[in-house]
């Protein structure tokens, strides 16, 4: 089994806000991240797929195909966007765009295309919010 990882970067703004909480509690839990004017990051998306190399091509997956899938399914929606205001899953009252939720949401966006291609399976999605902070999702509950 080979694990193959491709990286891509995107830049986006966000803020953390739980609609069911008071402004005071939001500020207490989320600190500066609750600033309603938002702030931004240069994110790195790392997608790992697992499978056996094809007997003819030697590829687990074609890297160009994986790049296109990442761009179409994730970057087209997230790059240079305000996640809370412009991305469906992070709309008001929905998911808070934490690094954890971005990793889970990116997985859900990528999974159908990777499943329908057959072959390699999605193994891990890791999202770096900064070089020092990341979250990863490996599927399942």
């Amino acid at each position: 089994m080979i694990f193959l990882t491709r990286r891509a970067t995107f830049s986006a703004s966000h803020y953390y806000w739980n609609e069911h909480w008071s402004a005071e509690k939001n500020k207490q839990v989320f600190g500066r991240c609750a600033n309603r004017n938002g702030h931004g990051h240069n994110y790195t998306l790392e997608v790992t797929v697992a499978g056996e190399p094809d007997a003819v091509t030697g590829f687990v997956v074609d890297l160009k195909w994986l790049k296109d899938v990442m761009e179409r399914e994730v970057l087209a929606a997230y790059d240079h966007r305000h996640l809370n205001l412009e991305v469906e899953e992070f709309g008001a009252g929905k998911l808070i765009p934490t690094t954890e939720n971005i990793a889970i949401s990116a997985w859900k966006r990528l999974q159908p295309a990777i499943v329908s291609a057959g072959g390699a399976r999605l193994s891990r999605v890791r999202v770096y919010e900064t070089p020092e902070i990341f979250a990863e999702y490996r599927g399942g509950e």
Partner: protein
Amino acid sequence: MSAAAKASFGRRFRLSASHRLHAESLSADENRKAYGKCNNPHGHGHNYVVEVLVGGNVDTDTGMVINLAELDEAIVRHVVDRFDHQNLNLDPAFRNQVPTTENFCTVLFGLIQDALPVGELERVRVEETENNFFECYGVQGYRG
């Protein structure tokens, strides 16, 4: 999204410390042979990077596995403040073992596991230089 989605949160911390690799049970010659430059009597130092990976359910109220500020507070208090700008050989954790980065990683895993306010410690990675690192995994195993 399911309320019980499990994800992992990673955070990198930096600390600078000195150490000397020297085993009391070995002769001077054997120590030099085993540890080379790392056995030099006055020690040397590294800028260590400690990467902590915490697994757990994503809290549906906060969207978080663990609050970054709480993780930082715990790790700085129990790990960074203890070892940063110190000589590892003089720390009680290394009274009876050589402060190789393997042993440092194991010590850190135990300290971080005890200090974690929430979640399960899945992995600790200690980077001694840009070219070498060591990893310790939790009992539950890491499915990466």
